[in-house]
């Protein structure tokens, strides 16, 4: 058994429930010394440096930067330096490394040696920890008898020693106890340690030889080498080569997949539980913040897009020659900028701390994008200083990068207004939620031929439904309506955009 420390995210702020991993300061495999900062974590109280609890090597990091981790979840594992390993010898993993202390569970992160007092006897009566009691029952050891030889302090180790000595063994070795799940102590180790056949059950040795590269790979995979089954030996000890390791991992994966399949719950209300983490959670929290901070109101209208359709048709081949796929979106974005210039209150932010409304004289438009991971809003900067083709190619580029997740966080920041083209999927009107702290967001419905009254007659016309949500703390309904009218004016007469 290796001396592995599983480090759980502590409650660093007296009652916090979770923390965000801000930045890792160490890599897997890196040697760390006790109290060296390994990760920065932000809670709702502060950003704090979390130090390593041991001198040792980082085995694996179990959370991503940006991830919200609940307190108590393991975020990193370490392999503690053995007594023979000097503090700076992190890479000296040779094939002869021995487990430090057989028969005890790995110390928990607070460094509590597990052979500390587990039971205490007084007046002939033993009050034992459940785990020690279980162990004693399983091994048929009489706790009271042990306490007579070990004094008042009975430890897990005492129980194990008594078990192997056959001393203090009660006659009634209970049979049913063997079936109990074991909490970390395998008292049957001697029976299983001869087991080297390639089976699914872990080999579970005390000592395994391997090349440093194999050892490193095993660490990355989070596989204890002592569990890997192998036929090879070296100097009389089990030896694990790279092939044995990989086939063990593959077998285990397969086994897990099988198990997962069979573990499908049988119920008349089948359900699947999906972790609310990562991007999903970030989206959720942003929405929550927006919804519960800004009172939001939506305004709807329709645009007669006849000229817009025509203009785009005219320009499309030109754009295609330049390698740009010209959609309606760049027109809308340009029109938005023109309308925002006329109604700057929609290109704004409420600075609550200073009690000021900030009107922004730059126009960075977010483009809500549907990605595999969920909604993302990459930003096209300075739309006012770009022509249609530049906007089109910028949109294309950021959207692609958002979809393949190569986009950087900064490219999704500093937006001043957002456009969401939900109509590309379908529908007409919506009540989009602000990309807080922005105060305006425009949703486009599906552009389609719809009946429209022109000069007293109902005729089919290409119609674009639009929905504008604004922050009612900053934007009045009348401003929202006027802005929408202005936007409409540009979209119905796209040649006006030439003047922009």
């Amino acid at each position, binding site marked *: 058994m290796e001396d592995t420390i599983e480090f759980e995210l502590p409650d660093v702020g007296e009652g916090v429930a979770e923390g965000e991993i801000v930045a890792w300061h160490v890599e897997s495999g890196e040697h760390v010394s006790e*109290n060296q900062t390994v990760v920065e974590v932000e809670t709702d109280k502060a950003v704090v440096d979390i130090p390593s609890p041991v001198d040792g090597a980082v085995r694996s990091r179990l959370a991503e930067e940006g991830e919200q981790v609940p307190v108590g979840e393991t975020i990193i594992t370490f392999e503690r330096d053995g007594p023979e390993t000097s503090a700076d010898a992190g890479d000296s993993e040779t094939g002869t490394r021995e487990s430090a202390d057989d028969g005890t569970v790995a110390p928990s992160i*607070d460094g509590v040696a597990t052979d500390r007092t587990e039971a205490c006897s007084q007046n002939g009566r033993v009050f034992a920890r459940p785990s020690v009691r279980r162990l004693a029952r399983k091994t048929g050891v009489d706790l009271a008898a042990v306490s007579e030889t070990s004094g008042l302090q009975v430890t897990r180790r005492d129980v194990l020693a008594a078990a192997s000595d056959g001393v203090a063994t009660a006659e009634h070795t209970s049979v049913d106890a063997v079936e109990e799940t074991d909490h970390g102590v395998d008292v049957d180790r001697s029976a299983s340690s001869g087991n080297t056949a390639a089976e699914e059950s872990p080999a579970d040795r005390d000592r395994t030889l391997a090349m440093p590269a194999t050892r490193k790979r095993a660490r990355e995979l989070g596989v204890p080498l002592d569990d890997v089954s192998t036929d090879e030996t070296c100097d009389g000890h089990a030896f694990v080569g790279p092939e044995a390791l990989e086939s063990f991992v593959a077998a285990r994966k397969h086994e897990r997949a099988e198990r997962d399949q069979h573990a499908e719950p049988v119920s008349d209300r089948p359900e699947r539980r999906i972790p609310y983490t990562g991007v999903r959670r970030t989206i959720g929290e942003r929405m929550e913040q927006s919804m519960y901070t800004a009172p939001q109101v939506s305004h709807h209208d329709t645009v007669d897009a006849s000229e817009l359709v025509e203009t785009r048709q005219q320009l499309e081949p030109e754009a295609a020659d330049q390698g740009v796929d010209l959609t309606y979106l760049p027109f809308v974005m340009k029109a938005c900028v023109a309308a925002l210039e006329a109604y700057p209150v929609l290109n704004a932010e409420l600075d609550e701390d200073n009690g000021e409304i900030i009107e922004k004289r730059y126009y960075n438009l977010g483009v809500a994008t549907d990605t595999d991971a969920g909604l993302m809003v990459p930003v096209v900067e300075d739309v006012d200083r770009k022509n249609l083709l530049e906007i089109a190619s910028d949109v294309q580029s950021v959207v692609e990068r958002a979809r393949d997740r190569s986009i950087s966080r900064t490219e999704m920041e500093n937006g001043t207004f957002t456009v969401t083209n939900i109509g590309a999927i379908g529908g007409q009107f919506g009540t989009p939620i602000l990309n807080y702290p922005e105060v305006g967001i425009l949703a486009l419905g599906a552009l389609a031929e719809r009946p429209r009254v022109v000069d007293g007659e109902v005729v089919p016309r290409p119609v674009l439904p639009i929905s504008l949500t604004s922050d009612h703390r900053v934007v009045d309904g009348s401003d929202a309506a006027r802005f929408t009218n202005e936007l409409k004016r540009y979209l119905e007469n796209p040649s006006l955009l030439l003047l922009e």
Partner: protein
Amino acid sequence: MTVVTANTGTTRAESFTVRASAETNRAALCLYARRLVSWYEIAMSNNLSRQALDLDAPWISQDTLSVEPHQIVAPDGSYDPDDVPDLTEEAFLDLYRWMLFEKRYAERMVKLQRRGELGTFGSSRGHEASIVGSGYPLQDSDWLLGMGRETMAMLQQGVSLRDMILFWRGVDDAQQFLAQENCMIGISVGGYLPLVTGIGWGMKRMDADAVVTAHFGDGATSTGASHEAINFAGVLDIPAIFYCQNNQWAISTPFEKQTNANSIAQRAIGYGVDGVRVDGNDVLAVHAAMTEARELASQGNPVIVEGLTYRRGGHSTNDDPSRYRDDEERETWIDRDPIERYERFLQSEGLWDRVDRETLLEGIDEEFDAAHEAADAYGPRDVEEIFVHLYDEMPPALEAQMASFGEFLETYPEMDEHVDRRPKG
């Protein structure tokens, strides 16, 4: 002794607020909070509206009394050799070692908390001279009741470092171990000060050759309990020293909003006792003032000593001071580091050659490691403690209960899982 309870109380209240705000309309809450803050600011600002009046009565006011802090070594390390207290070389060096210990202790405790091994911890960074200078003159027979930010003073009284770690793990046995050294920590701000007066009263009645010292913060001076305690100590001629570590902040409340008075020391007049303000970053000045304070107190003159210092870090490990105070303010206090100032003094005295800082630190780290290990080895609670805790000699009824409970657990071992033992940290 309800150490952790008081703290969890605060936390629960906080988390309630957080939950409530998520559920309630946030805008309304913001508005409410802002009103509250502006009301508070108006209510707490200094009285600037006083106009020139022609007054005949013999008014006393803030300017009647000027309170100058006692100082021996100036922040730049300069001093008048005549003012230096008459201490042995060993004592001079000892003061240095203790200050270094306090600093290192605070650093390591913060790390332990970040590792999830302590519930919470209040760093004493910046207070080293105030703590060490105020603890050093105390005698073995003296009592010391503090608030948690005076560890070395308690260690000087014989408290073990292990027990300080246990205390901050929320292991309340630690208080009992502290009490064996006549030390205790009161988490309830100011709440324990009347007990200090009571202990002093007992000392007086028993004609003990001892004084009782209370360590508390500037925040505690606003509690009713502190007024009662000091006033009553004055009435009863009690051998008590009220040592206020005025670090100028009580969590996020600055000293100006704590009181309209210019100092804590001046309150001594109102309580009918003696008082002094001392530069809390000058270990020799604190030491000198506390030495005299002890002399006064042991003659039945209770005293207030105000050590003016600065809390460099957060209030505790769950606090982010950048949310409420300027970096600039902190910078100016970093320039007034108590340890560096004392190093300059030792250099001028020609004692610096006798200091091997690295070796000192190694020794301190070893002591800390050993205490940490011992704290880890401190086992979980035994069930019989419930029964043996209360009486010196267990009454038969309780003994019978203990036996039957033991039998019960023997018969139903699985019930043991439902016995909640002390958690760690």
